[in-house]
């Protein structure tokens, strides 16, 4: 029988099935961070239960950690509640155990969805879960990877399994070559613009086509990362040479004879020819332009050469009111040219776009230029300590600093503003992160989601600008 990649991943992890289709799914990799785990460990303790398999756990503190003043140590975390959460993770990992722990201040600390892949802790064919919706990122490695809540974190800690039901399947086929200055971020934003933030609800998405094959692992991670913004819990890409070359030599990747055995198995992690999907969406990569969101949901997105939409032209009442409310929150008038929108801050970072390739791409735009004087703050927050050091070896930190960017320590930072990095009310930000929800980057803050290149170009211009012009 022909199978999709999702069928293969699903079937190879079912431990037990109930009559109604509920399955007990085995979990290979459990990523843990400080925000969604304390209540799970606490409940485990109260019930007198142990962690089923500590060598499946990889943990780090990323959401609350500061991006400045690391020389102050833990005292650099000014907010006592943030500090307690970071310390609680320390205590929990110390007493329950883990395969690897990259605590605050560790040279390999970083955003959980950056450090998993870069350490080879994410391997093809795995189920990967984490109390974080952007766990879909790891699907780039042909993993079945999805976010879970804290009760499920506890369930996985205690049983190594999750109760789950199989989703329907969706193929997102992206063919053709991207124009220069158009990126993986623009592919996924264009997709969300097409199908909406609930378009993928109930589906597992597989991304395929020549444009996906041409992406680096970093690019594929960006696409899979924002799958949750399309409503689907998981997105995935089949294994190919790009996958295997990325993993070769990573610290937790198999080596020697085991590596060869692993690669032979990984090669089968693709949909069989002729496999059937419940829904197919096709995008032509040649037609995708740099994308900019204008509203408070990632589906509120247009190309840089378009205008802010006019709610009066929307027929559906709920949507029309939603658009009007979004425009009011965003402080934007209908029909404004996207290129005329001026920004106050720039954020380059997050689990979507903080990997080395993202920083290289942004630096290439910034090099030899200056951040516009009207921009109050331009931040670069590398995804991990390893990304940061790699960037510094390549001199990217100097490029950013000379242009007027601040070069920070790794973490989630202003993607969700749990630490001190945030927008003030009314401030407008060009951000490479994944959510433009009301208040996401700070109460009253206004977020426009863009690619690293587009964020860099906006920093220099002081307003959104078509980065493709830089390449003429």
């Amino acid at each position, binding site marked *: 029988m022909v199978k999709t990649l999702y069928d293969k991943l699903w079937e190879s992890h079912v*431990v*037990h099935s*109930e*009559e*109604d*289709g509920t399955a*007990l799914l*085995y979990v*290979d990799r459990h990523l843990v961070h400080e*925000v*969604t785990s304390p*209540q799970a460990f*606490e409940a485990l303790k109260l*019930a007198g239960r142990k962690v089923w*398999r500590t*060598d499946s756990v990889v943990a780090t503190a990323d*959401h*609350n950690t500061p991006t400045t003043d690391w020389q102050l140590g833990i005292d650099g975390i000014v907010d006592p509640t*943030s500090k307690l*959460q970071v310390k609680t993770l320390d205590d929990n990992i110390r007493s329950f155990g883990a395969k690897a722990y990259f605590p605050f201040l560790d040279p390999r600390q970083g955003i959980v969805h950056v450090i998993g892949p870069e350490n080879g802790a994410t*391997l093809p*064919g795995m189920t990967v879960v984490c109390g974080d*919706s952007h766990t879909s990122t790891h699907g780039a490695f042909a993993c079945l990877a*999805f*976010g*879970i*809540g*804290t*009760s499920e974190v*506890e*369930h996985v800690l*205690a*049983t190594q*399994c999750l*109760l789950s039901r199989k989703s329907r399947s969706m193929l997102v086929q992206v063919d053709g070559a991207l124009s220069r200055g158009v990126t993986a971020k623009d592919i996924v934003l264009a997709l969300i613009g097409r199908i909406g*933030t*609930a378009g993928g*609800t*109930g589906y597992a998405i597989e991304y395929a086509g020549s444009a996906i094959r041409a992406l680096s692992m970093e690019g594929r991670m960006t696409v899979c990362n924002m799958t*949750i913004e399309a409503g689907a*819990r998981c997105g995935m890409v089949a294994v190919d040479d790009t996958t295997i070359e990325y993993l070769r030599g990573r610290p937790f990747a*198999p080596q020697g004879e*085991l590596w060869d055995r692993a690669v032979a*198995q990984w090669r089968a992690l693709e949909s069989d020819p002729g496999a059937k999907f419940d829904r197919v969406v096709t995008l032509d990569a040649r037609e995708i332009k740099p994308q900019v969101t204008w509203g408070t*949901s990632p589906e509120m997105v247009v190309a840089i050469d378009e205008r802010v939409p006019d709610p009066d032209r929307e027929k559906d009442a*709920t*949507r029309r*009111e*939603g658009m009007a*409310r979004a425009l009011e929150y965003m402080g934007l008038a209908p029909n404004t040219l996207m290129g005329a929108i001026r920004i106050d801050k720039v954020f380059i970072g997050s689990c979507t776009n903080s990997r080395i390739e993202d920083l290289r791409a942004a630096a290439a735009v910034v090099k030899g230029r200056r951040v516009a004087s009207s921009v109050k703050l331009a931040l670069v927050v590398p995804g991990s300590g390893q990304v940061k050091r790699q960037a510094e070896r390549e001199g990217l930190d100097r490029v950013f600093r000379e242009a007027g960017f601040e070069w920070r320590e790794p973490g989630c930072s202003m993607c*969700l*503003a*749990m630490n001190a990095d945030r927008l003030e*009310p009314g401030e407008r930000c060009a951000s490479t992160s994944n*959510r433009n*929800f*009301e*208040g996401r980057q700070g*109460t*009253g803050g206004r977020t426009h989601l863009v690619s690293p290149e587009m964020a860099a170009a906006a920093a220099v211009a002081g307003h959104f600008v078509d980065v493709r012009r830089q390449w003429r």
Partner: protein
Amino acid sequence: MEKFTVHTGLVAPLDRANVDTDAIIPKQFLKSIKRSGFGPNLFDAWRYRDAGVPGMDNAKRPLNPDFVLNQARFRGATILLARTNFGCGSSREHAPWALLDFGFRAVIAPSFGEIFFNNAFKNGLLPIVLAEGEVDALFHDVAAFPGFRLSIDLDRQTVAAADGAKIMRFEIDPFRKYCLLTGLDEIGLTLRHADEIRAFEARRRAEQPWLFG
């Protein structure tokens, strides 16, 4: 987990699509290491006129009178009526914790964010999917009839207007229904399969040893 069998309560309408979990409980309140106490900060940015931070005396904060949950007629509501894609976004279980802590026992919407949907069940908050037309009609009813109440019967899978004039059926996975009706500990249920898990694990270890150790 608290059982869910039959529940009758006042309905509050939240007439916006795509209500995300950041709106349900903003990130500054996720720093707690407890499961309780999130109710006063449910929908914080919409509910209050000032910027909320942890540790404030919420009783003294200025309320936004336009926000539906601040209106007298919806005080004591236990059923939230919402639009499509309610609970989209982040995986934070603090969202159902906050809704429960505020007093809600059920949310009715045409569709839900998947992770939120899952998380709700784990806590005894019942997310009910009704057709868009049915939800629309309920929004009209809530607006038209002050004190509009609904009665939810999980076993019969029905939502009924308290006067019995209208009965709607909803679907639910049998396993989820069973867990909610009995209030069973899912971990305890799963551990009944511990031998199967061990056997699965042993096979996997033999076939793909690089996944272990």
